[in-house]
């Protein structure tokens, strides 16, 4: 296989990491809505956004690997 083609396939595969980030972010906000629906006075929104940022970052690690494959090696 051509090296360039292999790189592109690898970068595409690395973006599968975003599946996990999507599930994670969905879970975070589902839990936030659930919590706020049960107890509208709950002070949990800052934690939800912290969780969102941490979950989103894991997906971006995969994206960083994709960029690394495409442009560094």
């Amino acid at each position, binding site marked *: 296989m051509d090296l360039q083609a292999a790189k592109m396939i690898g970068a595409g595969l690395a973006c599968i990491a975003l599946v996990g980030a999507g599930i994670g972010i969905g879970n975070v906000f589902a839990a936030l809505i659930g919590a706020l629906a049960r107890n509208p006075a709950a002070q949990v929104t800052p934690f939800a956004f912290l969780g969102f*940022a941490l979950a989103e970052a894991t997906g971006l690690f995969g994206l960083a690997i994709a960029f690394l494959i495409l442009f560094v090696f």
Partner: protein
Amino acid sequence: MVAKENPLAQFTIDRLIPIHIGGIDASFTNSALLMVIAGVLLTVLMLVATRKAALVPGRWQSVPEMLYEFVAKSLIDDNIGSEGQRYFPFVFTLFMFVLLGNLLGLVPYSFTFTSHIIVTFGMAFVIFVGVTFIGLARHGFHFLTFFVPHGVPKVLLLLLVPIEVLSYFIRPFTLAIRLFANMMAGHTMLVIFASFVAPLGAYYLIPGLLPVMIDVALMFLELLVALLQAYVFAILTCLYLNDAIHLH
């Protein structure tokens, strides 16, 4: 019709004032320029806003007061406790520097210095080394008990201690990559969608407007991410400091 401009071209570091000292390239770059702007902006904001300090703050004075309260209360007090207040200057400076770096990067045609891994890794490594020294200075060799979880069967410790050690030493890397990847991915995405405008709009007007609208929405997301990542960077620094001070 792929865009002619590379979406990663915005991260290029240009030498504005070339300086070479004995084979070391110490040029004043656009990255350094933005860092200087962030530092000067922060200093000027703090000095000018508190110049005429009143008991009842005016509009300008309440900006530093709100920032102070945010960092002192929701970052340090809630995560470290009152012992953490001595590290307030460091956490505040770090938070504001990263925040201003992220926000200045959102200005079109400017440069995001937090989107370079060497910048974020430099900060994360200083935090890591500093936190480890604080832990060792406070607890001596007792600090090593940090790596041994409480109430775990002896056999499991063989497995858990290496994991704890690894997760401790991986901290500077995750802290650096989290901020860098967020900023880089976001700004790349903005340019990628912006590069769809001309090829789509060349045929019909309406499809050309679609990427513009997506970019507007993405700009709001990036604003959120810029604030959030500065917050996450600062709060994780506080959590690491808490580990070093209280050992679990």
